[in-house]
């Protein structure tokens, strides 16, 4: 079977990124342990949130699992720029740019790796959640939508992080963006709290927050009676955001090449 060159080249890049990842067992251990710890801590700490009048649905654990899956995906995406900066410093990006490889493949290769890692990470999280008693009434198809939403969000933030890394070319810029942008995005969303129980201004802001779109789409899909219209519209916003982000990420190369 022959694939178009862009896909083939992207896949070559994906294989490289996955291989480099597997060679850092500590990184894998940390990126798995961290969300698991969050899952255990948050579900224990906020268990009584489920008793607040107006909280719908089952246990807080059921509620928070999709949020943690989305949060984990968002941060994986946010850190993607670190790998780009590593490659820039080592001259690897320059080497790629003087070959005929599609500029887009350098970005999409990394994003495909991110999708694969996010899917695996999400499934591990969901598996552990099931083991400690979480319930996903939406069944397998709901879980598929949740994982897809997580992958889309990771892709979007991965592309933005890549673009930022290419424009600013400093580790500090990526660290800063993750700390000052992603952290507030996580709290200005329904990741940890049901929408109706949030202050009005956060409800308003969350309507513009991609992390919230992903959470609503994912959580809606695993709920007992999924509102597919709402799931679909949130997934649609998310897809549009991911496409714009991917375009911006690839544009980062122009900015970089002007500086060389």
């Amino acid at each position, binding site marked *: 079977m022959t694939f178009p*060159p862009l896909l*083939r*080249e992207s896949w*070559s890049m994906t*294989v*490289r990124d996955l*291989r*480099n990842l597997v*060679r850092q067992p500590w990184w894998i251990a940390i990126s798995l342990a961290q969300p698991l710890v969050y899952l255990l801590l948050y579900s224990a700490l906020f268990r009584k949130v489920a008793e607040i009048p107006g909280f719908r649905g089952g246990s807080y654990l059921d509620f928070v699992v999709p949020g943690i899956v989305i949060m984990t995906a968002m941060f994986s995406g946010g850190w993607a720029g670190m790998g780009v900066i590593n*490659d820039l410093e*080592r*001259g*690897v990006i*320059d*080497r*790629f*740019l*003087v*070959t*005929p*490889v599609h500029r887009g493949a350098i970005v999409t290769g990394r994003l495909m790796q991110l999708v694969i890692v996010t899917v695996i990470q999400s499934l591990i999280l969901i598996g552990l959640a099931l083991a400690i008693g979480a319930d996903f009434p939406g069944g397998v198809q709901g879980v598929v939508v949740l994982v897809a939403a997580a992958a889309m969000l990771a892709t979007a933030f991965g592309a933005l992080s890549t673009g930022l890394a290419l424009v600013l070319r400093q580790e500090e810029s990526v660290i800063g963006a993750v700390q000052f942008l992603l952290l507030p995005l996580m709290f200005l969303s329904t990741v940890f709290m049901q929408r109706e129980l949030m202050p009005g201004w956060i409800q308003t802001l969350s309507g513009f927050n991609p992390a919230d779109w992903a959470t609503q789409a994912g959580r809606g899909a695993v709920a007992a009676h999924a509102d597919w219209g709402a799931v679909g519209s949130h997934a649609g916003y998310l897809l549009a955001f991911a496409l714009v982000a991917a375009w911006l990420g690839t544009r980062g190369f122009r900015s970089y*090449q*002007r*500086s*060389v």
Partner: protein
Amino acid sequence: MHAIEASSLEKTYPGDVRALDGISFAVEAGTVFALLGPNGAGKSTTVKILTTLSRPDAGSATVAGHDVLRRPDAVRRAIGVVAQRSGVDPDATGRENLTLQGELYGLRGRGLHERVREQLERFGLADAGGRLAKTYSGGMQRRLDVAMGLVHRPQVLFLDEPTTGLDPEARALMWAEIERLAQEERLTILLTTHYLEEADELAERLAIVDRGRVVVEGTPGALKGELRGDSISIGLADPPANGRARAALQAVPGIHELTVDGESLRARADDGAAAVPRVLAALDTAGLAVATATVSRPSLDDVYLRYAGRAFGAGETTKEAA
């Protein structure tokens, strides 16, 4: 036919760093051409433009017959690049680095596998092919760089400071490899270097680059031949008072092109061996104590001094362009 033509390339980096100031030169297909100059002269910027990584502010260039601005993709297919900074992925093995590089040029399957094996063998990396590149010595990493630059059999190879940072043994190996490539593969090679002896040894033609311009171009032999006679170099014990050394030596017959730089004096003489006693006597009469004296056949160092107007090493202290 010219494999590379650069014409009036200009480039200024942010902060008013003028890297290229109208550099022009042409390289005959199948030859080795060296750009020689100190750090910051604009050699790497020239290579970045010719390899499509960077764009000039003005001027034009063709590589392998393709315009670098209008047909960058055609240029990229025709060239191999070994950058000054190694582009090897340290977390991948030598074999993986070569394989990915081949894939980026569209090589696949058995052909790629064979080519990778061949390159590892040819560059003495067959045993190390399965080891991560970060475990390689500097010389091995540089050889992997060159192997990667050649994996797709390019017509034109760019070697940006290929031996900088290598120990003498690794440098000699790299020189032998470059000579072999030039002879057996009929590659066009553009080499940049700040080692005079490297350009002298490897290049059929060279251009001396200074402050973003070519100051002189020719074969190493012709450039050296332009210099009349031998080179005399005198080191004084103390820096002479203003103009005293010059005044003392101007009267000596057979001496020309005198330059004074601190306590070091340089001059040319038709017959160096005969001129030295006269020079020493003149300095003695002027009351200037001599610490060292050398006579040598003309070298590229002298060519550089003559055309750039200062000693070769002196250029390194000027502001370095990116």
